[in-house]
């Protein structure tokens, strides 16, 4: 897998500092599970956090803090190393996604299926999977907010390049695009939309009520 499109530095920084909402964080985590380069970048940023923590002026603890914490240890089981159980699906899903309940694929229009990802949260943000047949032209749309996509299989292209497996498409207000799925295999991706997305065309009319933005 050759990944050419990555999350922006600001997005990786928000992810590593723990300030991304869960849905956008999930799409970034999905990319990370496929991208060694960005995992290294996040490890570097987590070291930034660790170094700042080392340099912190220590706050004084209340009397007996260590003893109270020691008594809490007695109730703890020592770590069985956290095994990530992958959900059984037709597609080997990236691990971060497999922790969430997935709806069944629903046909939403010519060549396009949609699948809900069960993340509770904000009314203003959605996360879902899309599966689009080769050659499908996705609805032209503009953003008032953000649209972040991580591709699992297949590929699409638009004015900003070709997005294949592992690629991360980080679109914001400045982008109006018109993605086309490549010939060959269906394109399967994870998408999160935040803020007002103006979908146009026939599929926009179908998708808009589903995602209720």
């Amino acid at each position, binding site marked *: *897998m050759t990944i050419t499109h990555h999350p922006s530095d600001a997005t990786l920084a928000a992810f590593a500092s*723990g300030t991304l909402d869960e849905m956008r964080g999930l799409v970034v985590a999905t990319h990370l599970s496929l991208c060694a380069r960005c995992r290294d970048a996040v490890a570097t940023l987590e070291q930034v956090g*660790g*170094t700042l923590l080392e340099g912190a002026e*220590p706050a004084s603890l209340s009397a007996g803090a260590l003893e109270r914490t020691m008594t809490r240890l007695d109730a703890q089981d020592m*770590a069985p190393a956290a095994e990530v159980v992958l959900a059984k699906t037709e597609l*080997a899903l990236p691990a971060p996604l497999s922790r969430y309940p997935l709806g069944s694929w629903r046909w939403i229009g010519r060549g396009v299926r949609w699948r809900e990802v069960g993340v509770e949260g*904000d009314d203003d943000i959605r996360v879902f999977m899309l599966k689009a047949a080769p050659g499908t032209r996705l609805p032209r749309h503009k953003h008032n907010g953000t649209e972040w996509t991580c591709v699992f299989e297949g590929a699409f292209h638009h004015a900003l390049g070709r997005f294949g497996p592992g690629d991360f498409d980080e679109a914001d207000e400045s982008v109006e695009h018109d993605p086309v799925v490549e010939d060959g295999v269906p394109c399967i991706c994870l998408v999160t939309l935040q803020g007002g997305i103006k979908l146009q065309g026939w599929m926009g009319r179908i998708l808009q009520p589903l995602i209720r933005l």
Partner: protein
Amino acid sequence: MRDDDKAVIGESPADWIAAIAARQDRTAFAALFAYYAPRIKAMLMRGGAAADAAEDLAQEALVTVWRKSAIFDPARASASAWIYTIARNLRIDRLRTDRRAKLFAASEIPAQQEPERPDGPLDAAELQECVRTALDQLPAEQLRVVQLSFFEGRAHGDIAAALNLPLGTVKSRLRLAMGRLHHLLGDLT
């Protein structure tokens, strides 16, 4: 701490975590607690937590270190970076339940497949040294944004408001700081 205790449990935080994993060593736990709990409390208070909530969460973080000690891998992360991620995730879970949107706890992302990486993963000790150097060399305005983001856990929009800067400036300062880090890391390999 007596010298012979030191000889038994080692001197670095990574050694202390290893001693906890190997034999539930409470002397090592006490050493780790003495170093990290007051710093985690300070970090959370700078991020806006009340003193008692920050202290409770600092204690919880050290209990989590105890519980997860067996999965700590010193080749992958320094003790400080690992403990930072634990404190960060607890902050997300506990202090921000009032927010409309839940935040993503970015812990332990397993690789989906064996990646192609001819030069191998970063060495955690080299990375730690490099990050220290880079932070020492950052211009004050970039360091401020890095501290607000990573130490205080503030969202970029909040940082922009606090510093009275456009959001784009906050992001570009972060990008410049990260560029400095990548540059130093590049020199290492």
